[in-house]
């Protein structure tokens, strides 16, 4: 970290955020994957991920957060919509109606038989759209130049 003459010293806040950030991200991933059987899902998982990034923006600044996560959030939103539409179109390839979902056991090497559902891919699209839209709004408002 560079040594500059800052006006205030945020060492407690920055150290706390460096720890808490990963806890919130892990919790949001847990919320995302637990949405099928327990409360949670793509929406609240995306909101928790974006609140972790907001905490990063609060403790540091826009430039540092952009160097930690070099992501254009408009592309994140677009890719999320693409994933949601792609799961809908994927069912058309099998002669099923649009957005017909499928689930069943899948054999994965090293992990064995796992019950997977294509609804998770749709939920992943929702997750990416929520993260992208929330971070776009907050970054656009936050950049006061």
């Amino acid at each position: 970290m560079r040594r500059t003459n800052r006006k205030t010293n945020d060492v407690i806040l920055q150290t706390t955020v460096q720890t808490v950030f990963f806890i919130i991200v892990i919790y949001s991933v847990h919320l995302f994957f637990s949405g099928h059987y327990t409360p949670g899902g793509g929406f609240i998982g995306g909101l928790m991920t974006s609140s972790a990034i907001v905490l990063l923006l609060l403790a540091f600044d826009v430039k540092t957060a952009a160097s930690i996560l070099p992501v254009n959030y408009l592309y994140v939103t677009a890719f999320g919509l693409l994933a949601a539409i792609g799961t809908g179109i994927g069912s058309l390839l099998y002669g099923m109606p649009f957005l017909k979902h499928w689930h069943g056991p899948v054999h994965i090497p090293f992990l064995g038989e796992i019950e997977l559902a294509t609804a998770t891919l749709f939920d992943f699209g929702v997750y990416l759209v929520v993260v992208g839209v929330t971070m776009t709004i907050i970054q656009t408002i936050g950049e006061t130049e």
Partner: protein
Amino acid sequence: MFEWVMGLSLVIVAISTLMYFYRLVKGPTVPDRIISLDAIGINLIGITAIFSIVMNTDAFLEVILLLGVLAFIGTVAFSKFLEKGEIIENDRDK
């Protein structure tokens, strides 16, 4: 007996929240109000926990951690606004 104890603790937490609400309305300075809002959030966590015990479900356990995270983020944002005047800086080295 158990239900009675849970009801009593709910009443105690509710009274504590009302006292924090008094400090929220009456508080002479802005930091008083921020601290009381933070504590009301923590009291909400306690109320949610007691309610999930009373209703005998674990569907609200996500809400507890969620409220903790949101109370922390809100308090940090308010404090930064009071200290620096802006919440999200463009470049803190300037």
